């Protein structure tokens, strides 16, 4: 392996050749690949619609009468033209409640992941960057939290703060934070040793700037993918906790709480159980489709 081998076949570096590589930025390239993925497009369109529904439902429905009120004439109305998804044990339109409930599921799903992301990213990148004592401390704490099933964490949080949107957010962000800490630690450890980090130091940047500007942006792709998947997971987890009675209290039309309600009436009004669950499933499906699409778009190597 002589070092003096001439690179005969290497093309000349000309402005023309460089253009070919400079044509698209990394982000543009990712978006282009994402747009080719039909599943991801479908998922994205659905999620955009859902966000619009969540926002608009606040204006078109009256919370006190239509969402949590009692309409004696419509009790157990079967799904039909007037009520596409039927009515529940208090005569409330299930479609309206599901549309309104999107606010809770989306807020909790996205909110808990964002909070968890901030905590996990900071702790994980510190652990990955410094190693040693900090790494041990963070990762052992992580191991402990990780070994407690998230339902147990929620039980503890709820017994301290009571059932509310805030305590649900708190208990779910703990689980999210542990997974983000793991992922960002691994990603930072991979990037830490590379030359561009050294050169950033050589330029005289302080450590926090090196982490923020040079290390974290280079670890983003596994984290972005995890964010979409975690939102889906947390929507399911939130509804599960509400179903068990340690999440959002009735009569708030959170999808899991609606299922918990509907369970009692599964014989007389099965639609009370069917549709809120479908809403959860379709939403999470859309998020998973997007997450899978993002993963393929960000890391084309994976999709051989």
């Amino acid at each position, binding site marked *: 392996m002589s070092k003096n081998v001439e690179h005969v076949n290497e093309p000349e570096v000309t402005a023309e050749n460089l253009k070919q590589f400079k044509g698209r930025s990394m982000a543009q390239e990712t978006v282009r690949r994402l747009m080719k993925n039909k599943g991801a497009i479908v998922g994205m369109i659905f999620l955009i619609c859902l966000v619009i529904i969540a926002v608009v439902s606040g204006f078109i429905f009256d919370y006190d009468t239509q969402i949590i009120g009692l309409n004696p004439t419509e009790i157990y109305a079967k799904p039909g033209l007037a009520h596409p998804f039927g009515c529940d044990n208090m005569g409330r339109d299930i479609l309206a409640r599901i549309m309104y409930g999107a606010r809770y599921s989306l807020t909790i799903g996205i909110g808990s992941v964002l909070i968890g992301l901030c905590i996990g990213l900071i702790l994980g990148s510190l652990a990955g960057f410094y190693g040693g004592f900090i790494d041990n401390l963070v990762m052992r704490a992580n191991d402990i939290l990780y070994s*407690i099933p998230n339902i147990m964490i929620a039980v503890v949080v709820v017994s301290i703060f009571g059932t509310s949107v805030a305590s649900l957010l708190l208990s779910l962000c703990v689980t999210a934070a542990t997974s983000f800490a793991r992922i960002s630690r691994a990603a930072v450890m991979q990037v830490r040793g590379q030359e561009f980090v050294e050169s950033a130091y050589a330029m005289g940047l302080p450590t926090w700037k090196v982490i923020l500007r040079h290390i974290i942006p280079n670890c983003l792709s596994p984290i972005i993918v995890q964010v979409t998947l975690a939102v889906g997971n947390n929507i399911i987890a939130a509804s*599960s906790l509400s179903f068990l*009675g340690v999440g959002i209290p009735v009569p708030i039309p959170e999808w899991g709480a609606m299922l918990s309600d509907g*369970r009692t009436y599964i014989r007389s009004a*099965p639609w009370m159980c069917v549709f809120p*669950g479908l809403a*959860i499933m379709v939403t999470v499906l859309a998020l*998973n489709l997007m997450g899978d699409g993002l993963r393929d778009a960000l890391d084309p190597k994976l999709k051989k």
Partner: protein
Amino acid sequence: MIRYILKRLVLMIPTILLTSLLIFWAMSLTGGDPVQTILPENATVEQQEALREEMGLNDPFFVQYFRYVGGIVTGNMGTSYVTGLDVFDTFMHRLPMTLALGGTAVIISVLISIPLGIWTALNQNTWKDTLGMVLALFGVSMPNFWLGLMLILIFSLGLGWLPSGGSDGIQYLILPALTVGLGLAALITRTTRSSMLDVIRQDYMTTAKAKGASFKRVIYRHGLRNAMIPIVTAIGMQFSLVMTGSALAETVFSWPGIGLLVVNSINKRDTPTVTGSIILCCILMALINLIVDIVYAYCDPRIKAQYSRKG
């Protein structure tokens, strides 16, 4: 190997101490005043104070905590405020039910997901692959307890084949185990597929084919064995999911396991049962994780060698 297991068991002790401290502290903040729960409403202040003294509630927090930890070691974790039964006994009495449910669910999921994962990987980019992956995607996206409700709707209320709740025999186990197992199967199918796809392209697979090994032998002996590590990891990682899933399935199907015990105790504000059950669950999880790590060693001789070296 035995030294490794012993070392892990010793390392578990501080973890459990810390976890139990956390939970004990959190629950003592919130459990409310047990004296009010136990005594009738017309009890005098003196009676309340006497009971408080008797239960050791007036002691400093750490005294209470260490008394509690001592109790864990001897299997004495207090008695339930509601039923008056010993918490440890209640937990141990319920444990087999949850283990039966979780175990059956894991077996169901492995029986479905590994063949399905291999099948989709072998037929990559055909309609079979797409079908399998769409099924798995639906499975991952579905809330477990909703699947349970739908199974009740179809198989108990619609067709009348299986009971919708209770625990008087094997037929009662089928629906809850399916509920937990199908969700798990979806996850493991995805892992199996990607792990198999990685392995299929390796040179040793070509070598195995070239030396004339049969298709089955190539896939199972050379392929699956090498693909197993990520799959076992995935299964191992899902045990906390199995616990959560079981709690949900137990609630849906009134299966009298640990999950139902915890959920009911929360609703009745039965703090000793909740605290005890959660701590025992954490110990259980730590033990299961250890077993998963030992299973790795048997799947991969390299890991076994590593364990032995470290001692």
